[in-house]
């Protein structure tokens, strides 16, 4: 099921997308329309195989339209056009790219997707997944079975969230009020970039007030815990069993080996490696290898 997507695109952009030449004005296009309901700012297609005797007089008076056609129509009409050997297919490709969004109906029937969630195109959602109202998911992202995504969560394009993971659960944060533990409500969100991989049974907590941020190209293994308000820099890899506590910040291109634990608020510099089972209690400089309990600096990791 597809839904109409509002847009305003110049004819030259459409020609460039198709890799074809625009003839006529660089008109602005709002929507695709059929040849029986022509309006200005519309994209039309006229295929002379399907529609042999089209009366081009019907285009008169519409200056701002673009026609995909398989012949030169300069003598028949005054509007802008693009010549193609496949007007219908080009029209469909433009629709997919610029003017439609896929609705939730193409998704597994048992998935529970709030109608207010915004999904890009070509998204796969597995059985029993839950996607809440404040969630947006980019094109080509896969959400596997039983994944729960709740709270304010934005997930970019081309991501994979593997089965049983929980994205956007309440962060773990309590404060003593005399003898009683009082929960610090976690009302922030999560921003996940593009090409991010999150393994099975992993959890990403939403931030207390701001955002938990996972940058582009981050890969997270199975059974990983990402605490509230953390920031994981681009292209870093967090392997199985790792625990990233609240407010920690992992730099770019880091490698966090299995079962390592990064303490609250610790900053790990870019291009660093943290060894297996380490307990990282202090900040780690960039381009370094650290390991142990507590983790100690072992050597530099400068790549020649």
């Amino acid at each position, binding site marked *: 099921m597809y839904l109409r*997507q*509002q*847009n*305003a*695109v*110049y004819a030259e*952009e459409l020609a460039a997308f198709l890799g074809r030449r625009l003839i006529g*004005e*660089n*008109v*602005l296009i709002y929507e695709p329309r059929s040849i029986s309901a022509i309006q200005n700012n519309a994209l039309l297609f006229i295929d002379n195989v399907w529609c042999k005797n089209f009366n081009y007089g019907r285009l008169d008076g519409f200056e701002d339209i673009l026609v995909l056609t398989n012949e030169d129509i300069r003598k028949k009409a005054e509007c802008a056009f693009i010549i193609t050997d496949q007007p219908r297919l080009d029209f469909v490709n433009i629709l997919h790219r610029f003017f439609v*969004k896929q609705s939730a109906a193409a998704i597994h029937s048992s998935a529970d997707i709030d109608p*207010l969630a*915004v999904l890009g195109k070509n998204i796969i959602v597995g059985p029993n997944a839950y996607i809440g109202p*404040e969630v*947006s998911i980019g094109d080509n992202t896969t959400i596997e079975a039983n994944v729960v995504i709740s709270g*304010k969560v*934005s997930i*970019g394009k081309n991501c994979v969230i593997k089965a049983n993971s929980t994205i956007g659960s309440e962060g773990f944060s309590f404060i003593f009020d005399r003898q009683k533990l009082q929960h610090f409500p976690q009302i*922030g*969100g999560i*921003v996940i*970039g593009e090409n991010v991989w999150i393994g099975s049974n992993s959890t990403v907590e939403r*931030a207390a*007030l*701001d*955002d938990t*941020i996972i*940058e*582009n190209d981050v890969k997270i293994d199975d059974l990983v815990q990402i605490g509230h308000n953390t920031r994981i820099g681009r292209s870093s890899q967090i392997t199985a069993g790792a625990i990233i506590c609240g407010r920690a910040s992992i730099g770019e291109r880091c490698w966090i080996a299995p079962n390592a634990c990064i303490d609250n608020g610790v900053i790990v510099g870019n291009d660093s490696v943290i060894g297996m089972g380490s307990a990282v209690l202090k900040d780690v400089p960039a381009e370094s290898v650290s390991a142990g309990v507590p983790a100690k600096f072992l050597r530099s990791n400068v790549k020649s």
Partner: protein
Amino acid sequence: MAGQIKGIFKEKFSPFLRAKLEEARKSEGETSEIVRVIEGQYLKNPREEMIEETTERRRHYEADMPITHNGRQLRGVERLYRRVVLVEPTTACAAHCRWCLRGQYPVMSLSEEELRWIAQYCGGKEVRDDIREVLITGGDPLMAPDRLNFLIDALQIEAPNVKIVRIGSRVPIHDPERVEANLLHALRPRNGLRLEIGTHINHSAELFEEVRKAYRKLQDNGLRIYNQSVLLKGINDTEKELVTLFDELRYIGIETHYLFHCIPMRGMAHHRTSVKKGLNLIRNLTSSGDISGRCKPMFTAMTDLGKITLYDGIIIERQNDNILLNSGYKFDDRLKWNPLWKMPESASVTEDGYMNVWYRDSAND
């Protein structure tokens, strides 16, 4: 703020404005206020083709400064002030205001890749200590909600130093139906980022019920809306019309910001009043007791150096139709955030380092 195709800035009404105009012609007559306000703003006037002064400019200010990042020259991005970067994702608009600042520019739109480069520039180490604000304008960014959403997402990821995103739009006035779920999603509240809409309403007659509803939807979505008007000859250049406008805006919770003097650009002479007329209107407006101090606009000229609000003592000299304005901009500061900036010929540096600039007035009251 749309642009030109093959050197022509086309006449363009949105279907909504066209319908309102037709309806008003029938029900209220050709000389009614609504007809005058809509036609005055969107109907192409033959006087646009006349070059009335050889000094008329084709750009509204001299921001023609190349900005590069990672060795790439960026399109659709300008930086005139230290803390703000201006981005134009598309030049597309639902209707063409005839005094458009960018009516002289060619049309263009930016790809997602280009928008990402701009976001990366905003968060880059050379500028991230200075840049706090991004103004998304165009064109009308609300015409392409997906592109806008992409840009704001990219800024959140690539430039956490940006705290405020302002979006300039007339979509609620031009085509209120476009304010729907997908657009509101692009403008959803985001953590750590304040979103504001800078809109452009010139006359209370434009505030049709549909328009008010569209603004309300944006406000209900958590957006703060402020208004910048342009003083347009024959459209809103009377005290009564301005009082009604600023009152009405206040009733619907839209803040008054600037009242611009219509700039000396080619094709706009017939829209311009003198600066003096504007100053008199503002004086009467603010001293009459007819509007609250909460909705007094700042009367401002867009000069070659940028905006200069016309407070007392700003005009320091007059030569025929040219006035010399004392700006608050320092020459050295300008070079600090853009070393490629060239001081326009109309400007000069004073002893204390501030710049003065000549501005073209109009005698056309």
